[in-house]
């Protein structure tokens, strides 16, 4: 039996809603066509597109007009991979040079974002000068910007002028009492305003900006940082409200919090959510909202495919030495994009054909069986093609009697890859076991002898039999095997809980 591949449908949301089945592009299958057309090649909006299309951020916006407790304004760090840090700042002219160099070298690059390391709209001159030059010189690159929203209402006209069709607003709360626990101060009308009063102004501006963007037809994505004990109980309401106002996507991200980062949360021992807590909240929100589940929480100067950073290839001194003929590059880029689109389109039509088949076979549905989480080691391309030991992250899927759905990705290495000073003495395998908690199967192209035993002992079945197969097909096959073996009747083994 074939099962459909589900999208962002919460398990209790009543199964597949129209238009959301049959697609792995989990963020997009259920979007209206006009929005889908705008975002289909945006790597940040689609788990599938991100294997084919690349993005970059340029760090032209260092100033900020608020303080968040998860941010350390000493943003200069080469080793850490998290939002708000960069290696070098650029003036707009340098930034444009860098963008053209990257776009010519990595033709898959479709999107340029300005995301910091401060707030782009607290640096309006540098941000908009960069956008203006790029719109002229590289009209084939999509432009997007992210903001805390405080000065967003003042810049709506300018955003619309530069053909920016996506804006991300980070909204962590709609209640000033919650906001007072996240934002110690804002700079507003020439004053620093602390505590609840500042948070209330920020919230009001964010909501106003969201409404104004939607009224202009500019797509709005909302990012929220999940902070256990602070806003975790509150984010489902945030999700409902931003959706009702017209945001097209909600991205709930886990708090990144380490003492070494020197943030208030890091230093006060505030923890981030576990993978399970994050997934639960994303599921809760998804009943109301298109959820984004594959965000890699990039640096403010990231370059390349999501999850990779090729920034080292494009330092300012290397860029100065490059001779870029952008009009020529644009022709080559158009060819590369056309080839990728053709491949995506053909994959899409194959999936659609499969769904048709399911709906015919669906007359005799199998009895309901319990859902199973599976972890996938992949380098991309929608197939199982990564060794267990080489995987720096796993994609997590849930198989159930109603189909397969993408849950998210989990990293196996710490966010900080800086070496000894960042490690906590855990072995790589211990880390992987922790990362895979809750999963019953891990599918990879190959797996060594050494991790096999500990994985099994933790209730996670390693499986290398589906190398190079499409992810969903392999998951469905394994789920069927589990059904046949009677493994879906009982709850997972007790030791699973320990893992």
């Amino acid at each position, binding site marked *: 039996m074939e099962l459909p591949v589900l999208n962002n449908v919460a398990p209790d949301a009543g199964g597949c809603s129209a238009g959301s089945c049959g697609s792995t592009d989990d963020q997009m299958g259920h979007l209206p066509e006009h929005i889908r057309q705008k975002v289909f090649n945006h790597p940040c909006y689609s788990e599938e597109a991100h294997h084919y299309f690349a993005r970059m951020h340029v760090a032209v916006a*260092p*100033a*900020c007009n608020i303080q968040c407790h998860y941010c350390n*304004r000493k943003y*200069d760090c080469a080793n850490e991979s998290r939002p708000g840090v960069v290696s070098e700042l650029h003036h707009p002219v340098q930034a444009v040079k860098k963008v053209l160099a990257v776009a010519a070298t990595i033709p898959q690059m479709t999107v340029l974002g300005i995301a910091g390391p401060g707030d782009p709209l607290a640096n309006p001159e540098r941000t908009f000068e960069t956008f203006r030059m790029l719109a002229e010189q590289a009209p084939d690159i999509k432009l997007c910007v992210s903001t805390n929203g405080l000065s967003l209402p003042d810049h709506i006209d300018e955003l619309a002028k530069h053909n920016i069709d996506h804006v991300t607003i980070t909204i962590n709360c709609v209640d000033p009492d919650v906001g007072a626990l996240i934002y*110690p101060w804002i700079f507003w009308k020439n*004053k*620093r305003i602390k505590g609840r009063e500042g948070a209330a102004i920020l919230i009001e501006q964010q909501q106003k900006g969201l409404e104004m963007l939607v009224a202009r037809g500019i797509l709005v994505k909302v990012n929220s940082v999940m902070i256990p004990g602070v806003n975790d109980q509150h984010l489902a309401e945030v999700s409902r409200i931003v959706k009702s106002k017209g945001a097209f996507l909600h991205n709930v991200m886990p708090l990144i919090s380490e003492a070494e980062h*020197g943030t208030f949360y890091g230093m006060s021992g505030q923890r981030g959510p576990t993978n399970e807590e994050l997934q639960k909240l994303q599921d809760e929100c998804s009943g109301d909202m298109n959820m984004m589940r594959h965000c890699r929480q990039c640096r403010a100067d990231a370059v390349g495919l999501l999850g990779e950073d090729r920034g080292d290839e494009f330092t300012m001194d290397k860029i100065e030495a490059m001779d870029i003929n952008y009009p020529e590059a644009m022709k080559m880029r158009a060819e590369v994009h056309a080839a990728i689109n053709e491949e995506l389109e053909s994959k899409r039509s194959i999936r659609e054909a499969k769904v048709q088949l399911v709906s015919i076979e669906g007359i005799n549905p199998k009895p309901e069986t319990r859902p199973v989480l599976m972890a996938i080691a992949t380098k991309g391309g929608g197939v199982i093609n990564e060794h267990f030991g080489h995987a720096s992250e796993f994609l997590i899927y849930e198989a159930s009697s109603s189909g397969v759905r993408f849950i998210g990705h989990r990293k196996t290495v710490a966010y900080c890859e800086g070496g000894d000073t960042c490690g906590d003495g855990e072995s790589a395998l211990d880390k992987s076991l922790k990362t895979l908690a809750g999963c019953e199967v891990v599918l990879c192209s190959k797996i060594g002898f050494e991790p096999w035993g500990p994985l099994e002992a933790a209730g996670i079945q390693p499986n290398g039999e589906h190398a190079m197969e499409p992810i969903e097909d392999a998951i469905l096959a394994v789920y069927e095997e589990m059904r046949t073996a009677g493994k879906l009747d009982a709850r997972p083994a007790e030791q699973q809980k320990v893992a």
Partner: protein
Amino acid sequence: MAFEIIESCVNCWACEPLCPNKAIYEAKPHFLIDPDKCNECAGDFEESQCVSICPIEGAILNELGEPLNPPGSLTGIPPAKFAELVARQQAA
């Protein structure tokens, strides 16, 4: 009457456009205040603008060399805790 920016400045540019007297300028290794131009925003604003937006505790000093945003006043991180972290990172 003038303020001073010291080496803990992270060069974030936030203060530069706010200065009513154009006293703040980009310099290496960090931004500086021209003491001849700075009047601490007297007569222009109720609060000194650079001091009100600067995110770094201790980066701007008054005439007496005292930090205008003392440790703990902006981030809420207790100064002792922060000193511990700095010591740990320097030792590593």
